[in-house]
């Protein structure tokens, strides 16, 4: 392995890491918002909307991100909807992640004993107050491991962004190999950068998970 090559390529990988993180986090926040709204709709059994959310979940959980990105980036412009590559990345990640987040939150909501809802309602709280002050804090605390798994899953999914011309870590490595054929150095940097991005999240996740356990109540 050639150390000079590693030093020379380092800045390119750094840029790619920042791009991956930027799009990744925006997508994850979008996924989180979609997850909260979607799971609330399912929780309250809202008519019609509940069906739509169901279809959305099945659609996005049963198609690969690659296909979703292809559709948003290459097919939508044909009907006049032009979207930049970055927006497309955030949208694709957010919509895919949203479908998973809804399921994660929903299982969290379902895990909170019914007696809690009944007690809150009998104390005169509204539906929203019950959800916001009683059920949701417990449900999120139960969902934390699932949410973190989703976050890491979504950040790893960014590796298909090359399809829509985003210079993420994977594409940077492939591109450099294609141009200069320094395969070993490029792949080594690729592995190191993914670990640098994901290991801290795993570690912080483990800590947060332990802290959040205190939020659980009743059993």
């Amino acid at each position, binding site marked *: *392995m050639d150390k000079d090559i590693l030093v020379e390529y380092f800045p390119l990988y750094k840029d790619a890491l920042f791009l991956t993180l930027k799009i990744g986090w925006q997508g994850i926040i979008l996924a989180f918002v979609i997850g909260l709204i979607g799971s609330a709709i399912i929780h309250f059994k809202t008519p019609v909307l509940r069906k739509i959310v169901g279809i959305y979940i099945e659609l996005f959980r049963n198609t690969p991100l690659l296909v979703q990105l292809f559709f948003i*980036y*290459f097919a939508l*412009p*044909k009907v006049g909807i*032009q979207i930049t*590559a970055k927006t497309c990345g955030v949208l694709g990640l957010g919509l895919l992640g949203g479908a998973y987040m809804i399921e994660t939150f929903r299982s969290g909501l379902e895990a909170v004993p019914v007696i809690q809802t009944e007690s809150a309602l009998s104390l005169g709280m509204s539906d929203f107050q019950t959800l916001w002050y009683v059920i949701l804090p417990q449900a999120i605390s139960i969902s934390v491991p699932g949410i973190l798994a989703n976050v890491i899953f979504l950040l790893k999914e960014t590796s298909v962004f*090359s*399809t829509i*011309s985003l*210079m993420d870590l994977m*594409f940077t490595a*492939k*591109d450099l*190999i*294609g*141009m*200069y*054929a320094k*395969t*070993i150095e490029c*792949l*080594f940097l690729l*592995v*190191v950068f993914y*670990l640098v991005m994901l*290991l801290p999240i*795993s*570690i912080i996740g*483990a*800590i947060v998970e*332990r802290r959040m356990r205190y939020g659980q109540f009743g059993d």
Partner: protein
Amino acid sequence: MKKNLVKTLTSGLLVTGLLAASLTGCGSSDKADSSADGSAVEAGESAAGFRTLDEIKESGTINIGVFSDKSPFGYVDENGEYAGYDVYLAEKIGEDLGVDINYVSTEAANRIEYLQTGKVDIILANFTVTEERAQEVDFALPYMNVALGVVSPDGAVIESLDDLGADDEVIVISGTTAETYLAKNYPDIKLQKYDAYAEAKTAFENGNGVAWANDNTEVIAFAIENEGYTVGIPSLGDQDTIAPAVTKGNETLLTWLNDELVSLGSENFFHADYEATLLDTYGADYEDELVVEPSK
């Protein structure tokens, strides 16, 4: 909690270290192979990751890497068969070697990889000869001329790279000579990179970039086949050649291939190839410009 954190950290570092060690291991053994390949062509070829001429003949099948989406050079036709200028040559090579052909679909960026890892015996995928690539693979004699070209929509034809605005993006395909040329000579031009021809084409049609830079053969074909596009820059950079490539050090196959190409050249095989595969796209005007009959 603390204990666990330390544990996670150490195991993470351990994994990184192991990977580093194994990768460096690969690196040094690669080097040993390539330095030894001159003397040990007969003995150590499987270790170097390629098959000799005799091994290919013995197995009865040759693996040839071609494009599957670059019409009219290497593509899959409406019957699901590989066709095109490169494939026409591949068919002839298989016939003269007396073996079956296993076509392996490649993308621009993985052509060198496929040879180095022995996934294919020959690359016949419009592979432009460059100095950097010649350090990684062995090129046989050239069979086609090529330069770079830039195509843009009729409404806003780019006739010189100086016409480009600061925010204009030029579409290129990752791993092509167009990418390397622009990155080296025009570092200020923003490149929008795609990893396959089909994606770059669709993105260009959708208007994601102001122009598309690629081999001029490809952009000329695109402008002929699609209404509303003009090749504003028909020739950019140096005139290059296109040649088959084999894994570095595969002397027996390279020698056979060069002899084959010279003998085909003496029969004007490549003019026949042009007339069979490229005439419909380019017409007769480009024949002498593009075709090279290999000779010693």
